[in-house]
């Protein structure tokens, strides 16, 4: 008979888990494995709340397994290292993102593209090689293979850095892959949330002209004055959209709900590229004429490999880029999830795990 989460592994752990499709999280006792020779044990300081955590907690994608401890934007301190670990030592400040393992032997793993390895293991809601479930960062500790741990640059704040481990790499990787880094070119960013606001900062650091495209005109001042975007386009203003047709070299679409792609394709110049990053649970409609007549393309991207994730952190440190966060206590997570569903956050919730998780046991 399968062991309970508390008994599966030798080291006690505590976190908050979703137990059913309501997605409501509550205290949960489980366990972490022994620190193997390749492993690093991390005391978690902060964990970002990604919209994927919400999709997964409510089983919106249909493959959730409960109980589920979400969280894949983890920053913490090393407390233990395995005998083969040379890159890290105790007290190092490190991060863990969306993956905790891969096969390490396929062509993707060999090219630093662990995120595309067919046997890649997600930080939570996935199955380990030993058959046990992976549990994420809404918890006090995590044990991870050193290959999937990144160093947090000294100059970065722990809370502002945590969201970069998913949101940051999710926008940085396609900007590199799709060649969206030529200074002076024009990037449109659809949606000003966790992904969008980081994309604005990284886009500006690449020397791009950045236009934020949003359905909420109230975000305009923020976008222009605080985040440094060059312009703002209200997507449900047909006249303004029309005036911007054929002006953008690239578009990053961060919207996680079902939405029409046609208006955004019209914003692209000939040979323009639209990268879609959100994961709505229903299909989108893709008109083909604009792709053919303008040689445009729509592509996807899924986080980034470990090497690129470290590169992204170092890039952000160099350009003083951190996420804009609202730090919350662990027991505020359900309210935060409700607010996240309504996009009521500037722009990422980050759980102050170290200072609030253990208190929530009482």
């Amino acid at each position: 008979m399968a062991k309970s989460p508390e008994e599966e592994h030798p080291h006690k752990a505590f976190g908050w888990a979703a137990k059913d499709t309501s997605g409501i999280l509550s205290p949960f006792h489980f366990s972490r494995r022994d620190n193997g020779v390749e492993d690093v044990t991390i005391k978690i300081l902060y964990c970002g709340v990604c919209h994927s955590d919400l999709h997964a907690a409510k089983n919106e994608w249909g493959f959730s397994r409960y109980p589920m401890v979400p969280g894949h934007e983890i920053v913490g301190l090393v407390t233990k290292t395995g005998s083969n670990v040379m890159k890290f030592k105790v007290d190092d400040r490190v991060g863990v993102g969306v993956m905790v393992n891969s096969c390490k032997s396929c062509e993707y793993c060999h090219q630093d593209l662990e995120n595309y390895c067919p046997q890649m293991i997600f930080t939570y809601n996935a199955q380990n090689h030993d058959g046990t479930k992976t549990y994420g960062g809404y918890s006090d500790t995590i044990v991870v293979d050193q290959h999937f741990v990144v160093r947090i640059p000294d100059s970065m704040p722990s809370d502002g850095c945590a969201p970069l481990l998913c949101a940051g790499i999710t926008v940085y990787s396609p900007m590199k892959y799709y060649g969206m880094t030529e200074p002076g070119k024009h990037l449109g960013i659809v949606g000003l949330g966790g992904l969008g606001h980081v994309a604005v900062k990284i886009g500006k650091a690449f020397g791009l002209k950045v236009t934020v495209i949003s359905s909420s005109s109230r975000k305009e001042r923020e976008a222009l004055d605080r985040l440094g975007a060059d312009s703002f386009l209200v997507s449900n203003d047909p006249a303004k959209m029309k005036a911007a047709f054929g002006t953008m070299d690239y578009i990053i679409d961060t919207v996680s709900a079902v939405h029409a792609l046609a208006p955004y394709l019209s914003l692209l110049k000939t040979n323009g590229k639209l990268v879609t990053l959100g994961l709505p649970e229903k299909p989108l409609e893709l008109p083909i004429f604009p792709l053919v007549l303008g040689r445009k393309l729509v592509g996807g991207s899924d986080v980034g490999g470990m090497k690129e994730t470290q590169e992204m952190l170092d890039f952000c440190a160099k350009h003083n880029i951190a996420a804009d966060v609202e730090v919350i206590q662990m027991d505020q997570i359900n309210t935060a999830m409700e607010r996240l569903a309504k996009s009521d956050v500037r722009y990422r919730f980050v759980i102050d795990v170290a200072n609030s998780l253990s208190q929530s046991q009482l």
Partner: protein
Amino acid sequence: MESKSPELEHPKPAFGWAARDQSGLLSPLKFSRRETAENDVAFKVLYCGICHSDLHMTKNEWGVTQYPLIPGHEIVGIVTEVGSKVEKFKVGDRVGVGCMVGSCRSCDSCHNNLENYCPKMILTYGAKNYDGTITYGGYSDTMVADEHFIVRIPDNLSLDVGAPLLCAGITVYSPLRYFGLDKPGMHVGVVGLGGLGHVAVKFAKAMGVKVTVISTSPNKKQEAVENLGADSFLVSRDQDQMQAAMGTLDGIIDTVSAVHPMPPLLALLKSHGKLVLVGAPEKPLELHAFALIAGRKIVGGSCIGGMKETQEMIDFAAKHNITADVEVIPMDYVNTAMERMLKGDVRYRFVIDVAKTLNP
């Protein structure tokens, strides 16, 4: 002021076959061509390929047709006159014209040899010229075009089998290059084995690419493999075959213009694979974001090619002995040919023997 009749618009009498209404039926029409201007090349049309676009346009399926319409944009012939400033061509040269006869020559696209993406590009037929008259295509005895939009046909490329390359050929050659699906050892799928598809197989093979034809018709397999040189054949309605081929293709050139599902095609792609559509279904297709995101895949489109690339494609075809597989027909067979083309009953392009059978 009433516009002039087609016969009187221009000074040089011409003769062709035109569609006059949405039935799409073609019949003889006297019209006229302009004087050969200083940058123009005039030629006697020998052959003209029948493209599926001709059928869409004669029946006004895209809603943009003005009648009378003389179709034809896979036109080859022999130069009869050149303008005073023309240096690249002389009388007697073997030349061709494809889908375009004009562009603005000053925008970014034009400056980058991408006249096909110029917002002011002028189509070879059914479009408005700068002088306000409508362009007439190659189902006619003569053609006049600016030398910039004329390509040279190398001597070793026969005109009848070369004509379809001017649209079908460039339409598949351009995306194979642009999307990087031309590297030896790559594995590319071609969806649809018609005018575009069969030429795509030949070009891809010549580029050293392994080719799988994907079709709804199992009876095309033998042709595909034995005559066209495809490496394998997938029946798209056969779930088992499609499943076994999942994740095997670097790219797909999709020539099908009817609405069809994308998910099975995306599933055939390896990670980082590219699905390129060159047929344009009129309704949007369903896109599952996961399918693109999980493997960092791309869906793109492409529309013919610029003039420089069209010449490059013709030269490549001549070098590698790539020709279209054609059924040469007399002009007065054209309506029957259109009906047969609609049913896919042609291997794989009709070509009108204009010079020998177009009689006023």
